[in-house]
């Protein structure tokens, strides 16, 4: 039986033939048909965690949908409005964690329409706007995310809800952080902490601390980052919030990677993955797989295993429409093929990563991929072309360094 995959590839080929007809296209078509998956072989998957992590089967979303729909039909009759709305919001959050992005958005958007029609329940309306902002953020739709967080912020301000405003500040910081605008991000996180100062909201506090940890990691302030994560982990443990706890383990893994402590980093990624696989927190799995793949390719030089991890991460990122992760996966695939001296494919993957990061305006990731591309081109004696990329990377990292110094 033909797979659907073949249809798309055939359509792509027919389409591109209408636009480009030179011989180069034939080479490109050939490379599209090549199986570029590296064979891990049984031997390279010696560790049990690696084996179970790479062989993880993604859950089927329709099972969730059937249960949630039945639940809602029952509860619509049984619950008073305010409780039913809160349930819808909780279910939207649950579906986001489960990687059912469209369904999560559907639940939140339908709720918002209802709430706007009723013009009552302002607090939950604000929370719903914030939820939608989060769903768009998860897909790198920054403009949509910012629009909804601004709507949420306006309502929380009118309600004089300090925790609500703090949550919005945290969301704003998160969006700017993903875009690589770290000064702006940090300001919003600090604002969030100010609003939370006299509030008894342990969860929001922990979330802001985690995000500050990420910014401090990127800016190279490792001591502060360790302090941030230590505090947020303690809070998540108290709250028994496994999802956010496991995400923080991933963030600590990233910190150790930056510090060059690769064994510790792998331990943290494994902690994150173990918890996330047990509970099907797809998004956490994807980022931690990428973290492991980076170490396997850049330090341990196990290309096949790194490739297996990027493939699994790709499967998840594709399902949850996480474009930011997809762009990162391409960068690591570029590094893997560079190590294997498949320079042409490596260059192509770096180009994919740079293009996607430009499209979604993720400056840090664009700079990281540009730096890798620069290295590749320099090593192939294509210095002039390399310069174009290294200058992009250098400009970004210099700005980052300066911003870090001025913050101190």
């Amino acid at each position: 039986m033909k797979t659907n995959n073949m249809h798309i590839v055939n359509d792509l080929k027919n389409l591109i033939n209408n636009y480009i007809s030179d011989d180069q296209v034939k080479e490109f078509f050939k490379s599209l048909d090549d199986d570029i998956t590296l064979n891990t072989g049984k031997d390279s998957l010696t560790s049990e965690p690696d084996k179970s992590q790479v062989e993880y089967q993604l859950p089927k979303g329709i099972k969730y949908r059937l249960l949630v729909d039945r639940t809602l039909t029952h509860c619509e009759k049984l619950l008073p409005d305010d409780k039913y709305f809160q349930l819808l919001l909780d279910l939207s959050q649950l579906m986001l964690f489960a990687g059912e992005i469209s369904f999560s958005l559907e639940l939140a958007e339908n709720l918002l329409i209802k709430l706007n029609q009723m013009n009552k329940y302002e607090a939950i309306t604000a929370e719903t706007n914030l939820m939608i902002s989060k769903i768009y953020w998860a897909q790198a739709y920054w403009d949509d995310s910012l629009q909804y967080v601004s709507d949420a912020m306006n309502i929380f301000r009118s309600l004089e809800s300090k925790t609500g405003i703090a949550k919005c500040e945290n969301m704003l910081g998160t969006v700017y952080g993903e875009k690589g605008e770290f000064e702006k991000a940090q300001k919003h996180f600090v604002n969030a902490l100010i609003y939370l100062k006299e509030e008894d909201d342990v969860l929001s506090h922990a979330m802001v601390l985690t995000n500050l940890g990420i910014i401090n990691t990127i800016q190279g302030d490792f001591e502060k980052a360790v302090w941030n994560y230590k505090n947020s982990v303690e809070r998540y443990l108290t709250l028994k919030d496994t999802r956010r706890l496991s995400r923080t383990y991933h963030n600590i893994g990233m910190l150790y990677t930056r510090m060059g402590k690769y064994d510790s980093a792998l331990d943290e990624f494994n902690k994150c993955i173990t918890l996330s696989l047990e509970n099907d927190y797809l998004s956490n799995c994807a980022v931690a797989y990428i973290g492991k793949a980076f170490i396997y390719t850049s330090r341990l030089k196990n290309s096949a295993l790194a490739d297996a991890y990027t493939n699994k991460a790709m499967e998840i990122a594709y399902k949850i429409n996480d474009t930011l992760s997809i762009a990162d996966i391409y960068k690591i695939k570029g590094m893997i093929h560079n190590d294997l001296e498949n320079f042409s494919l490596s260059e192509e993957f770096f180009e994919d990563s740079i293009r996607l990061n430009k499209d979604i305006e993720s400056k840090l990731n664009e700079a990281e991929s540009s730096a890798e591309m620069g290295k590749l081109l320099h090593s192939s004696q294509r210095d002039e072309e390399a310069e174009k990329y290294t200058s992009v990377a250098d400009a970004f990292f210099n700005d980052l360094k300066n911003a870090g110094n001025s913050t101190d």
Partner: protein
Amino acid sequence: MQNSKYTFETELEELLKKYLGVDCFNKINLSSYPAKEAADGISAKINAFYEDQLKINMSDCSERMKIDRTITYSQKKLEPEKFQNFLLELGKICLSGGKLDIAAEIFKKVKTSSNKSGIKAESLLGLADVYNRRANWSKSLSNIAEAESLYKKTKDNLGVAKCENLIGITFSEMGDVETAKEHFHNSLTLIDPEKDMEMAAHLETNLGILDNVQGNSVESLIHFNKALGIYNKLQNRKNAADVTHNIGMVYLDSEEYELAVAAFDDGINTAKEGGFIPILCLLYHAKSRALVGMNALYYAAEFADKALEISHAIDDKLALADIYKVKGIIERQLKNFKVAEEYLLNSLRINNILGNEMNIAETSLELAILYEHINNSNSRKFYLKSSLDYYKEINASTKIKKIEELLNFEAA
């Protein structure tokens, strides 16, 4: 490692206990439905032809990688305007394959990068199509309005006709037959059918669908056959499969089940070959309905389940609500009345959210039939009347007659 279903169900149970209280929660049974278990039992025995029809490979992340590689490659090789046109066509391919996320990403890329009115308008129309397929009517209509104003500025009649057609489709999917028809006719006046053959075929198809809704099966088939002739001439297999589905729907509504199944099988064949997943979803759903008519309930359940799986994966909420309705009918026929009621109420709840008046009326009618079986005359009457109101509004004579007979039967 914990089983994922177990984990999710546990979390859901905890959430429900929090909201409903333990006592009330205990009255809700979230375990599997009996008919599903029975259908699973038949899975092993399902005949080879049906089994082959249901075998598809829906989602593969390597597709995404190939699409990304092709975009990067083309961006390097093509002039900006050519590249944008390439992206528009690629976006449409992704739409045909039910890949709405990447289609939206592509159309947004064109929208933000192009300064040419025609290209920008086309990208807005593409985005409107994505929103339409996700039943987000307001966002779809606002994107169409933006596109239409750009087309009007450049006096691009075919562009305006495309907008009018998509507005018509949106109203048709909300069940507003008259407004939909008005927009399709507006569109027709803007094109030259000899020159704009594909557009003419789209409009024939859409007018055929409305005629069928209103019970004019002869006129409907005339429209569909005209459209099919054009699509075949243009070798447009995707739309040919879609029209074949619609022809089957006319036979289904006339209760000519064998003819309907023959049309659906033909459509399934083409849609599977071409990987036209959204159309395949509609065809599985339609075939399930035909199998219900033929009383082949377990086979019908298999097709409905597959359609449900696809509709969730491609985020086709309208289809999903309709499939819940079919599953409700199957359970009702199997006399699992409680489960049938739950599926039909699921369908009604989602259709209410989507604001689809026609589907609300259809589901209400099925609920009324269910309540007749369980002797709940108040609910039966309520749903019959609400269904009748809609069919009177759209002047669907066959349905009106059927419902009035049901109401009179009770009165007698």
